[in-house]
């Protein structure tokens, strides 16, 4: 991978981290509020089904995770396991795609 692509990966990880900082905070606050408010799973689904805003928020969350996590794992594997190169990069790309697919599936399940 060229230094230019590696720099873009670094930028993507920083940008996705900024998005995640907001998403994680909103997610945690909402979750705690929902649980403390005594909402059941059915109550929560009643509020999320058909809600475009929650759908867009969690879709953004999933995209940020799918970008951020594989880039971080790539660095950790490179430094701690010395696992680098094309094979490793292809694996982390697959992890990103899988995270995106699984995440979007979960978002669809609570929004659609």
């Amino acid at each position: 991978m060229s230094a230019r692509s590696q720099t873009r990966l670094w930028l993507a990880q920083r940008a996705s981290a900024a998005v995640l900082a907001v998403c994680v905070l909103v997610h945690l606050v909402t979750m705690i509020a929902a649980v403390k408010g005594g909402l059941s799973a059915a109550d929560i689904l009643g509020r999320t089904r058909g809600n475009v805003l929650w759908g867009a928020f969690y879709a953004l969350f999933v995209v940020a995770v799918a970008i951020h996590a594989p880039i971080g794992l790539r660095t950790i594997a490179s430094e701690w396991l010395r696992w680098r190169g094309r094979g490793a990069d292809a694996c982390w790309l697959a992890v990103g795609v899988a995270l995106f697919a699984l995440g979007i599936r979960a978002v669809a399940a609570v929004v659609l």
Partner: protein
Amino acid sequence: MVMREPDLLQVDVWRGGSNDKGRFQTYAVPRHEAQTVLDVVTWIQRKLDPTLAYRFACRVGMCGSCAMTVNGRARWTCRTHVGKVATGNRLQIAPLANLAIVRDLVVDMREFFDKWAKAGGAFTPTASRRDDFARVAPASPARREIDAAIECIGCGVCYASCDVVAWNPSYLGPAALNRAWTLQNDVRDGARAERLAAVAGDAGCHACHTLSACTERCPKQLSPTASIAGLKRMTARAALKGEL
């Protein structure tokens, strides 16, 4: 009047090559006031064991050749007083980490300086001898960035202290990147685009995790961490503009 015998320091010194090809050997060295670690090593070599290999030149903190690992931390030995680092009367002296050991306290610095070259550490002039002197305002922001980073003596303390170097052998390291940062801020330099490409990516500034061991241990109180952060900003801007 009874002359007081000087206290004795127990000094463990690394002898031999790397890992299984070497071991610590203990020497008893008389302790003196204002004694430096380099004084101790020199005393051992001159009085106890002339086969001990170590490196030094200026003895006054300018040449950067006497760095060693003292009680587990990389330090310049000529400016490190024994009184400040000895635990009781014990001192452990080993070669710098992250570099191949030649023998005893001498490491092979080639990798360290080869990485300076890889990071574009040489100044590339844009003017000839017929041109007038370049005028660089001392208060200009770029010149101030250079001032903050230029006093590196190339001792290798930062390189030996960097965990990222240990994890990622291709990482250029704090000193080479610090040098590149000074040249990236030099308005007279003609290779800034090439250098920026050389210091970007997994082997360059983006590998730094801002652990700051380099900054904490730099004997010249420089901040390679800040220089590397500067390179990250510079490469990010260039990447966004499509200039990298």
